């Protein structure tokens, strides 16, 4: 795998505040990295250092081998960046704005017109291309910001909360776009929406109080959830007590929780020891006792539990 972005012990201090503290990771071609963390954890500051807007206090960031501090223009040329909140020149139309950004990037004439055409089409901006940006809806503005980031077809994309404030359809479109572009690019997407991770990311880096607390595949993170491989059982109410007594005797079961009851059925949540696979065992056991199972579902685990556990350390 070709490594396209590399952060090494990247650190930023604002006065007495340690905003980012020794963050290291790398992103390869074809990879979509989800950059997660609670608000104020240092996501945006890290991205700003990577894109050359903020100088690191120490540590290095390289884009396609170019150091963002020592060779900023070479590095910036290879990055498409959507800053947090997608700031734009409100007085310009999307077309004029894209022309400006293109020319600043040294693209001119027919090539510029062609690339603007591609970017406008990919972000579905045709109908608003000539309206002043300040009159556009949040969704359109975000897409203008995206169009600007992909205009020069950069090998590295850095998107700071690209779906923030979009409606579900727009979110879906943006995620689809990110997926489509990921084939030959390295993409870093920051977000605090966890569903996004499942939808687009190959890998997740979680940051809290300026430090990386996890760097793993989404499935691996789900496995860390106490709910991973938990079994959710729906049974007839009369036999719930009996069933839960029986299940508790299994040595792979950590806990049995009784959830809601309605319409004569009840739901049990069976938590395994160390994420053991319980489904087959439980259903066999209940079958043996002649207890009818209305429904049985195995949980994958919830990222938000893992996220909370990782980002709310002892000091929080």
């Amino acid at each position, binding site marked *: 795998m070709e490594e396209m972005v590399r952060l090494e012990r990247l650190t930023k201090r604002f006065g007495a505040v340690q905003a980012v503290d020794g963050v290291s990771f790398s992103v390869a071609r074809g990879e979509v990295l989800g950059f997660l963390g609670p608000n104020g954890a240092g996501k945006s500051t890290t991205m700003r250092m990577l894109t050359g*807007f903020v100088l690191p206090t120490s540590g290095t960031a390289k884009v396609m081998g170019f150091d963002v501090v020592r060779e900023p223009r070479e590095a*910036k040329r290879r990055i498409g*960046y959507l800053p947090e*909140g997608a700031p734009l020149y409100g007085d310009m139309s999307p077309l004029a704005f894209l022309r400006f*950004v293109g020319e600043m*990037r*040294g693209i001119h004439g027919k090539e510029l017109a062609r690339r603007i055409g591609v970017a406008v089409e990919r972000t579905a901006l045709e109908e608003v291309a000539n309206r002043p940006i300040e009159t556009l809806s949040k969704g359109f503005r975000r897409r203008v910001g995206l169009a600007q980031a992909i205009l020069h077809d950069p090998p590295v994309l850095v998107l700071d909360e690209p779906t923030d404030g979009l409606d579900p359809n727009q979110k879906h479109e943006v995620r689809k776009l990110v997926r489509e572009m990921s084939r030959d690019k390295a993409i870093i997407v920051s977000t605090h929406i966890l569903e996004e991770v499942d939808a687009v990311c190959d890998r997740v880096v979680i940051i809290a109080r300026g430090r990386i607390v996890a760097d793993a595949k989404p499935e691996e993170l789900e496995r860390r959830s106490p709910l991973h491989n938990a079994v959710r059982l729906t049974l007839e109410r009369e036999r719930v007590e009996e069933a839960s007594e029986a299940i508790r005797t299994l040595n792979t079961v950590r806990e049995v929780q009784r959830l809601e009851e309605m319409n004569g059925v009840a739901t049990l949540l069976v938590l395994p020891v160390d994420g053991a696979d319980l489904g087959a065992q439980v259903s066999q056991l209940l079958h043996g006792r002649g207890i009818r199972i209305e429904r049985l579902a195995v949980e994958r685990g919830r990222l938000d539990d893992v996220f909370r556990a990782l980002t709310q350390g002892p000091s929080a």
Partner: protein
Amino acid sequence: MDIVRTVVRRELAAYFTTPLAYVFIVIFLALAGAFAFFLGGFFERGQADLESFFVFHPWLYLFLVPAVAMRLWAEERRTGTIELLMTLPASTFQIVLGKFLAAWIFTGIALALTFPFWLTVNYLGEPDNGAILAAYLGSWAIAGAFIAIGACASALTKNQVIAFVLGAAICFLFLMSGVDLVLAAFRGWAPDWFVDLIASFSLITHFNELAKGVIGAATAVYLATLVGVCLLVNTLIVDLEKAR
């Protein structure tokens, strides 16, 4: 050079898409005319020249030019577009220069629109058109110096009002550094050579020459240096903000 031109074009367009440009031009023309006629005695002097017109320009510029320069950086800061701008592959100086040139060209347009004065004196008599052209260039140069100062002030804040007040105050110091009002503040403690140095910064002394249509080498060097230093300081301010 491409990048500077692109910045100039975008900034100029930004002036003309807001009412600021038109308000500025109208007020500038109205005041330039009013000062020349009522304070300068444009007709009463009975001379076919524009000295009574040019002599008030520094005072007009003192509060109009900082208003042109105040948005250059403060607006980018306030709206966050500075992040977009500074992550494009351009050097800070190119952007500083482009913004300065755009504002300077804009004041040039306003100044050029005073051409009816020139037509009037040519209709009424036979003025020295070379001297008038020189005075126009001199006036434009003073506007340039004020813009360079105002741009620095704008880079220091995200509040345009602060940028305006700060810019106007610094411009005032430069304009008036030759008079006792300013020099008295230094005379008590600073050595004589320093007081003389401050006095030599005075734009008004240089401008009085320019208004007569005389462009001296010392004045040209002084203005070019002032603008150059301001652009470098501007670049430094923007770059330091990144390292903060």
